[in-house]
């Protein structure tokens, strides 16, 4: 439906911004609650972490980063156009630039997050 509606890039940019925004909002609720749990019952929190570290947990972690990264980049694009309206002429080009950045940064994070799910060493070692 989203792709057949002839709204073009601007409409898709808006739809993805909204969907990712609502998804991140839902995660914020979970994240405040899990840190609350870490405070009141650290033992149960530590057990919950094994769920976060499971392959499905890592898949959701990657999806979360995709949502955050898209929302951040497109949000910057919105702000630029809000304060420099003449740039709006190039809103499509900006959106494509967003996707280039999204893929470049996203691949690094996705590989790092997903590697342990395949029994592999996380590729980037920062001493962590």
């Amino acid at each position, binding site marked *: 439906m989203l792709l057949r509606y002839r709204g073009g890039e601007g409409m898709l940019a808006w739809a993805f911004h909204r969907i990712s*925004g609502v998804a991140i*909002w839902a995660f914020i609720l979970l994240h*405040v609650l899990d840190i609350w749990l870490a*405070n009141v019952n650290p*033992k149960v929190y530590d057990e919950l972490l094994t769920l976060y570290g499971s392959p499905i947990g890592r898949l959701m*972690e990657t999806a979360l980063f995709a949502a955050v990264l898209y929302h951040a980049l497109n949000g910057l694009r919105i702000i630029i156009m809000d304060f420099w309206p003449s740039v709006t002429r190039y809103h499509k080009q900006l959106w494509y630039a967003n996707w280039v950045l999204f893929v470049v940064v996203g691949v690094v*994070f996705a590989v790092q997050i997903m590697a342990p799910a395949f029994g592999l060493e996380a590729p980037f070692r920062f001493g*962590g």
Partner: protein
Amino acid sequence: MARITRAGSARPMSGGFELAVWYLMRLTALGLFVLVLAHFTIVHLIYDPAIQKADWIAARWSSAAWRTVDWLMLSFVVFHAFMGMRTVVQDYTTGSTRMVLTMLLYLVAFLIFAMGTIGLVTFPDAVKVAS
């Protein structure tokens, strides 16, 4: 400056509360761009979340600076996320449904902000989990 925007929502012309929210959404967005991406880089790229047990959080928050940064991020994110949800609610509902949902959002926002703040401030400097 032309008063039109083609993305996000148009700058409110009425001024007052709605205009303040419009500016604050963009201000918190810029703050979160830095804070959240830095946060994600540290807790998901540099360190694996799987190792971040309660004692890891305690070690991180033994620094008052980190607690301050994280509390700033909490404040920004609660405002930005809930005011964003308010826009979503206002786009799809009218009348009393909109009123009830908006009030519900404010209530949950307050609860989440309170829980986040209390959890962050009272987090012990060291956590011992018998396993």
